[in-house]
């Protein structure tokens, strides 16, 4: 059952071949067996999930329609608020924080009949590319537990890749959905900025953050996106535009589409990744697409601009964690000392690094040289994308320059770690949608093809991903479950 995608499970649930409760028990059982190795989850709510599954079963038995995701177990990245369950963001400072409200995306999932089983591990406050920056220990890649799953939505990617749940939510600020999706061999979509509500997503960098789906295949991404997307009066950056029927757009294919490849930007790509990428693009040509070389002359500046802007916003967003109202408090002789001690004890090294960086780049005297200049780079990069996407329908490039790396390999060198995001951050700066779909493995490890499109054009991205999957079904490959799963598959 854990091999099946959500869209394969749904008809079985609807015609009652499969009960939501049984599906849930299988998921919980698999989580129980795999967690000691993978550590994808930070919290589980088995009892509430069981009660919900029984309710869904009762509805389905009575012939009612409890929604488009009825009976499907889902996992939430632990920076999304669910009333009554801790939201730690992988940080000591929020270890004791239980939100009194639900994120809009969580409400939408629940209204669609999905069953939240728990919250997944992440780099602290979503700052990282390996899920090693969690205060509660790293998550491991099911393809090779010696390697990282990517990050920051590593727990969600692993939960899907290892068949614990068919669907999971992640958040993507600079690649945090797409990069772990690529490392774990699943599909992940970062929607257009403003497509999905951020209400209830603990902010890392507000102008870049988006919530999005992680799933076993493109159709599941489309299904989940359809539930998540849409206007939310509680988020004034979430736009009021119609939500297309994404699954219905999947079969449009890529016939006659122009796919742009930023060749210059991809120079120096390691040969195996380049080969995998060429094979994927050739497959798309086989489906009727045309390849066009495009130039995004300023894309190389996206990464440095991102590492100015994201920490600047983060330094302000994370200021509220001060021990006064909620979360960790370490006492001190006065309020200022209490705040300092709380923050010193509560934040991990990478979060502190980014707070210091962001505070510095916003400071009087440096603001112009760093923050303002990075904003200018951001608009130039956005213009590059716009111009390129006026000439072509989609852009394609690898999601990451390399496949999953061993745990600990990059933790000592932040800059090397930041380079993991080199192909993904531009999309966030430009506010565009980006999809990662499995392509041919690189040295036996999953790799991802990234498809980038115009704003609000998720339907076309998904159709392209679907076209690739139909001729190169790498998404069906399963991690070597026997390594840690006692031959359960």
């Amino acid at each position, binding site marked *: 059952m854990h091999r099946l995608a959500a869209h394969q499970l749904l008809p079985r649930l609807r015609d009652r071949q499969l009960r939501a409760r049984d599906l849930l028990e299988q998921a919980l059982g698999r989580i129980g067996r795999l967690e000691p190795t993978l550590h994808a989850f930070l919290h589980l709510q088995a009892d509430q999930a069981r009660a919900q599954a029984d309710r869904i079963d009762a509805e389905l038995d009575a012939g009612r329609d409890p929604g488009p995701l009825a009976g499907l177990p889902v996992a939430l990245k632990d920076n999304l608020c669910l009333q009554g369950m801790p939201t730690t963001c992988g940080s000591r400072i*929020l270890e004791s924080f239980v939100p009194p409200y639900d994120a809009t995306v969580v409400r939408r999932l629940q209204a669609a009949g999905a069953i939240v089983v728990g919250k997944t591990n992440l780099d602290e406050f979503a700052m990282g590319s390996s899920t090693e920056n969690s205060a509660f220990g790293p998550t491991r890649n099911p393809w090779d537990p010696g390697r990282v799953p990517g990050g920051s939505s590593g727990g969600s990617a692993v939960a899907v890749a290892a068949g614990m749940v068919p669907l999971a939510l992640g958040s993507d600020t600079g690649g945090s959905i797409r990069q772990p999706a690529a490392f774990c061999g699943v599909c992940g979509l970062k929607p257009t900025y403003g497509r999905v509500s951020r209400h209830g997503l603990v902010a890392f960098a507000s102008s870049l953050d988006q919530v999005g789906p992680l799933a076993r295949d493109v159709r599941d991404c489309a299904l989940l996106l359809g539930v998540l997307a849409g206007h939310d009066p509680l988020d004034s950056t979430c736009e009021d535009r119609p939500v297309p029927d994404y699954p219905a757009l999947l079969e449009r294919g890529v016939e006659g589409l122009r796919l742009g490849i930023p060749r210059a930007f991809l120079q120096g790509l390691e040969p195996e990744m380049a080969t995998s990428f060429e094979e994927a693009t050739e497959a798309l040509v086989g489906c009727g697409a045309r390849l066009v070389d495009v130039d995004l002359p300023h894309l190389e500046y996206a990464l440095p601009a991102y590492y100015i802007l994201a920490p600047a916003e983060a330094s*302000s967003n994370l*200021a509220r*964690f001060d021990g006064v109202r909620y979360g960790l408090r370490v006492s001190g002789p006065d309020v200022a000392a209490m705040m300092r001690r709380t923050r010193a004890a509560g934040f991990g090294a990478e979060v502190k690094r980014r707070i210091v960086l962001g505070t510095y780049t916003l*400071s009087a005297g440096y603001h112009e040289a760093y923050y303002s200049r990075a904003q200018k780079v951001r608009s130039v990069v956005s213009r590059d994308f716009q111009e390129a996407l006026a000439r072509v329908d989609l852009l394609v490039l690898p999601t990451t320059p390399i496949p999953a790396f061993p745990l600990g390999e990059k933790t000592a060198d932040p800059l090397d770690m930041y380079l993991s995001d080199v192909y993904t951050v531009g999309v966030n700066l430009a506010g565009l949608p980006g999809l990662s779909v499995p392509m041919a493995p690189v040295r036996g490890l999953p790799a991802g093809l990234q498809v980038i499109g115009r704003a609000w054009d998720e339907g076309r991205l998904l159709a392209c991903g679907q076209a690739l999957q139909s001729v190169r079904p790498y998404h069906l490959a399963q991690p070597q479950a026997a390594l840690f799963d006692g031959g359960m598959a």
Partner: protein
Amino acid sequence: MSATEAAGLVFETVIGLEVHAELATRTKLFCGCPNRYGAPPNSAVCPVCLGLPGVLPVPNRRAVELLILAGRALGCEIARLSKFDRKNYFYPDMPKNFQTSQYDMPLAEHGALEFEVGSRVHRVRIHRIHLEEDAGKSVHVAEGRQDVAGRLGDSDYTLVDYNRAGVPLLEIVSEPDLRAPEEAAAYLEALRDLLRWLEVSDCKMEEGSLRCDANVSLRARGSLELGTKVEIKNMNSFRSVASALAFEEVRQRELLEQGGRVVQETRTWDEERGVTVSMRGKEHAHDYRYFPEPDLAVLVVDRAWLDRVDASIPELPAVRARRYRQDPGLTPAQASWLTSSRSQADFFEAAGGTLEVATWMANELSRLARESGIDLAQGRLRPQALAEVLGLVNRGTISNKGGRELLEHLFREGGEPAELVERLGLAQISGEDALQEEVLAVLQDHPQAVEEFRSGKDKALNVLVGQLMKRTRGRANPQVARNLLAQAALRGEEG
């Protein structure tokens, strides 16, 4: 400049004010919590105004409209595009440790306020008006020691009330156009009157819904350059604004005359001691690390919105005062007093808007309001009732004195004037028949006065009238009584 140089100079004081006013919206700036003063601590809060992880601001359009209203009334240009920014600093009563404010693109700029001090009209330019959120309130608690309550240094612990957090504020920054402490206080009062008139804010300094900081510097008269400025905070009443500025003016002048220099710093007004005290120097000034608020879209005020707000601007007090001077011909003092509040001016018009109404309001009603501490608008007296009372007086149904008595009753208790005249027995006795008996009694009791009157001493009639008023407890119509007494005395009707 040296002491000897300074000694020969005449200094000019230069003052600019930064005024904060809490907007009279129903809800807060970025959430649906009620904007209400005096609610139990932390009863008007939600995840948004508490700054819980994951929440986002949703702007209150009414707050934007009130700012535009104030901006237009002050002759400002309203920005078609403006934005919100984050002002970053740590303080326990600020839930997010940043304040959402406006930095380099305020909603309104380049206005002016005209007001009178004595009979001179002053014009102070408005530099800018922007929208921002208020912070909560810290309450410093010293257990069992009343004496230190309220002071941070001596307290045992601090409680924070976040009811005020997220309440919309407008900040009005003047140009340094004020030249004297009393001028500054007059500007602040005029600004308060205008904001109240527009119903933009209730502007109660004692409740903190109007707050004021000042920048003060001195320069040699005739100089165009500004001197080093000092920022003064913690002035909690109009009187303390004038006192603090007067103190600071003298402090800086003495400093300069002794050859010293004014240090750029922030000083706090110590009301008890009547002095300003240094809070922090320039080197300790906050670096607020402003940047655009990424959770809020750029604020667009289009022509249609602006037109709608313009259409809602009431007739402004200066315009109305001019109208009252023409019709019904009030004195400038009367007109400006009546238009110092919109409810007062509206009351005046609803009561008929005559000279007589103005006189009664200025004399009787202002006294009653002062004595009772109840604002005219909050009193029980309806303007139509005042008009009725004046009608009763004019028709002679009640006397002037009766009118005052009736008005006081109406102000305190309310009611229908006609019915009260009856119930309180205020009606004048004007009928000759009704007075005849009392007239005879007076003549009988005071034969000497009657004699004097008959012998040509007209003044003696006053004694008789006085006696008659006494017998009727003032209810006799004095003119009717006078006529009756004179006729009866001359006819020799005393018996």
